[in-house]
């Protein structure tokens, strides 16, 4: 149980001490934070504050939170896996200096971003360093990688390391990029070839391509997520493709999808738990006379029954 009155006075003093104006809106937000027993995320804070003071907009919330955080009066928790939540920083005396951002159970540690992560990297660089003209670039990539790994929780990291065999060194990527003449405008072609090589687009490969072609990573992700053929998640060993073009739809391709779901337990877009099968839909294979069509292992099947499907899937290892 907090004694709200006392606390509000303390915090008012703290803010005034740092030279910031205690506006009406700031007081309302502070009040809401103090009154809450747990942590609030920005939207909840907005809704509660807005009720008391309709002039408060989301921008005000963010600006105030940023200010309070900077001054160490509010702490952000639960950063990466959930929405950021905030709570009042409780301390017995006046804060002498600006604190670092504190890590919480799944939060982040600012120190880790300076480079010495201490975590093993997914790829070990093999080969002659001199072959790569820009050693610094490699170092930057490795730093970013360690940052990335630092962000993952333990379980995810193990899964990542387990996929190490799928990922070799960057030499292959270099070959692909130079085949396409290191041209920015050939980015889509490069990504298609990279995906053929690795079966998906791993994050660090994208980081490498981004630095090699000097394209901001944002652009690469925009393009990779815009087009349907790019997979940003690892795929199963076999890809089952079902055509859902108009002709096959009219011949009830949805029943075929349902039958596959009955047998394997996955919907389209999913991969089975053992990473054996991935179910995908395409817009038209051009074999409308065979509709509804399913392609597996480069063979085309016309409207397979449940029995046929069971046999097919169990025959493949």
């Amino acid at each position, binding site marked *: 149980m907090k004694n709200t009155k006392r606390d509000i006075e303390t915090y008012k003093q703290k803010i005034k001490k740092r030279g910031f104006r205690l506006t009406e809106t700031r007081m309302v937000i502070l009040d809401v934070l103090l009154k809450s027993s747990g942590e609030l995320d920005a939207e909840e804070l907005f809704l509660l504050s807005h009720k008391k003071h309709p002039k408060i907009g989301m921008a005000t919330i963010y600006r105030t939170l940023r200010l309070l955080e900077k001054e160490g009066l509010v702490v952000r928790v639960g950063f990466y896996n959930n929405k950021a939540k905030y709570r009042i920083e409780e301390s017995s005396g006046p804060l002498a200096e600006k604190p670092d951002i504190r890590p919480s159970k799944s939060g982040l540690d600012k120190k880790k971003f300076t480079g010495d992560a201490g975590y093993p990297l997914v790829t070990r660089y093999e080969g002659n360093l001199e072959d790569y003209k820009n050693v610094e670039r490699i170092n930057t990539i490795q730093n970013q990688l360690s940052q990335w790994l630092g962000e993952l929780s333990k379980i995810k990291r193990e899964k990542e390391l387990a996929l190490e065999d799928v990922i070799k060194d960057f030499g292959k990527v270099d070959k692909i990029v130079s085949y396409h003449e290191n*041209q*920015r*405008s*050939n*980015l*889509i*072609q490069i*990504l*298609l070839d990279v995906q053929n090589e690795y079966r998906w687009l791993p994050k660090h490969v994208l980081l490498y391509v981004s630095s090699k072609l000097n394209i901001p990573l944002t*652009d690469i992700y*925009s*393009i990779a997520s*815009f*087009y*349907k*053929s*790019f997979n940003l998640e690892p795929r199963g060993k076999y890809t089952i493709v079902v055509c*859902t*073009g*108009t*002709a*096959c*739809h*009219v*011949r*009830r391709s949805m*029943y075929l999808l*349902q*039958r596959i779901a*009955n047998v394997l337990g996955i919907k389209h877009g999913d991969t089975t738990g053992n990473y054996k099968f991935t179910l995908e839909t*395409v*817009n*038209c*294979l*051009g*074999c*409308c*006379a*065979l*509709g509804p*069509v399913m392609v597996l292992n480069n*063979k*085309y*099947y*016309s409207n397979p*029954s*449940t029995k046929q499907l069971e046999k097919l899937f169990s025959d493949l290892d």
Partner: protein
Amino acid sequence: MELKLVIEIKNKINSVDKLKEKAHEVEENYKDCIEISLCSGTGCKAYLPQELYRLMLEELDKNKEKINKKIVVHKTGCLGYCEKGPIIIIYPKELCYLQVKSEDIPEIVEKTIKDEVVERLFYKDDNGALIPKVSDIPFYKYQNRIILINSRMDPRNIDDYIRLGGYQALVKALTAMTPDKVLDEVKKANLRGRGGGGFPAGDKWETTKNAAGEPKYVLVNASEGNPGAFPNRLTIEGNPHSVLEGLILAAYAIGSNQGYIYIKQEYSLAIENINIAIEQAREYGFLGKNILNSGFNFEVKVHKGAGAYVSGESSALNTAIEGKAGEPRLKYIHTAVSGLWGKPTNLNNVETYANVPQIINNGADWFMSIGTKGSAGTKIFSLVGKVKNTGLVEVPMGITLRDIIYKIGGGIKDDKKFKAVQTGGPSGGVIPEHLLDLPVDFDELTKAGSMMGSGGMVVMDEDDCMVNLAYYFIKFLSEESCGKCVPCREGLRQLIYVYERIMEGKGKIEDLKLLEDLALVLEGASLCALGSTAQNIVLTTLKYFRQEYEAHIYYHSCPALVCKPLINYEINKEKCTGCMLCVKSCPVNAISGEVKKPHIIDQNTCIKCDACVEACPEKFSAIEKKTGLLGVKL
């Protein structure tokens, strides 16, 4: 005897005489020769044409001594009659064998060597009469195959194309015509874009030519986002040189030296074939520097598209080739004036380019003699859905829809009742029965509320629900939309909500007005044609099939028995013999019953997956679908 397997590299062709010489040479090769054309398009891929080819060669080898004439086997592109694939055509007699299986090959080889026929593989019409000649078969009789001359050529062999008259137009243009003359001829012929818009190609070429800026580019749009249509794929797979020739002619007319072919990466066979075609054309000197000693240079590159329907739109395609996310641009400056990297760019569909060589060869007047006044020439359609003869057809403009569906298509599968035909893909609309006598023409189809599109024609019968169809297309568009502008993105999102409500039986009467208002927003406020043509499917289904929408809303029933939430699966007690097959097949154990006693489906558990219908033997057919408030079948 010789079996032609290897493609020989010859010297460059750089004059009219050399081309004629080459054509003559190839023709000599085929003189007195029996040609066996085996359809190897992707449509027949499931039937393993590779297998058939190998078997055929084996058989021919086995019977080497008995062969007294030269026999050549072509692996051709799609022959169009996908329903009856695989197809073999024997020339010069034009005999056509349908639905050939591997077991038939030895007999075919044996009979062909002896100059005899295999009657059981011929086409049988409704009266049982046999039709041996390919051009007499109803499917082919009403077509006018100008571009799809696939049947006598191997798409990976440029010599075959030359033999059939290929590259003559290019030679004629580069040696005897100026670029302006080529442009004038195309303009005169009224060649309208075959990609959907129907914009006169000659005018577009002229705008690009007159625009300021160098270098100029020519693009081929082979992205074919339309699900359920594959004419572009088969043109590139089966006759890639016609597209190349058209492209080079266009570049010559416009004054461009660099071309790009944007083709979807799923079309692996088409990409292979066009790459081989480019290589072979370069060998012969039809590409590269100083083509045919005319001083004209031209290079072409293939660009793979990564899977986006919206990238088929012209400004989006330009953006995609530049290596960015294929979003349409604000179109106040046309791409013909400022396209790729800000330079004048001409974009046309595959089919448009494929028509150009014929126009130059035979003249604009010949082209205009086919088709209607407003739309000259032929159009390739992929006729799919509930027709008997699914496949790829090339018909002259002006033929009625009824002729296409009944005469060429053979009528509705299983002789059910025709309901509607959908043209133009997700950007088009439906055409009901009373408009079936509409001629196929750009303007007529647009007037009816639909559009020609790139060539998809989906036929639907009484078992297809129009509400579900509109929902399917809107869902497709919402995922394929680039998401940039609010009316398209949010409008489509709200449309989906309304449709889901209607399909679940929670529709309200105001929803119909809501659909119309959303269509208005989409049409008026969208940035590009994806959003503004999305209204076609909504408005046409509302206009012609309003009673289906009302049945969903008022009676909570789906007359076509498609919309899952509105139908119930019930077992007819009189027909059920208690065989327990459906009980075992149900994935959620919703069917209960004992042997020899009628089974019952628990409606609360049933997920309507159709597994029981599949399991119930046809002679019983005891599982029925019912709809409507009172469970009465409407």
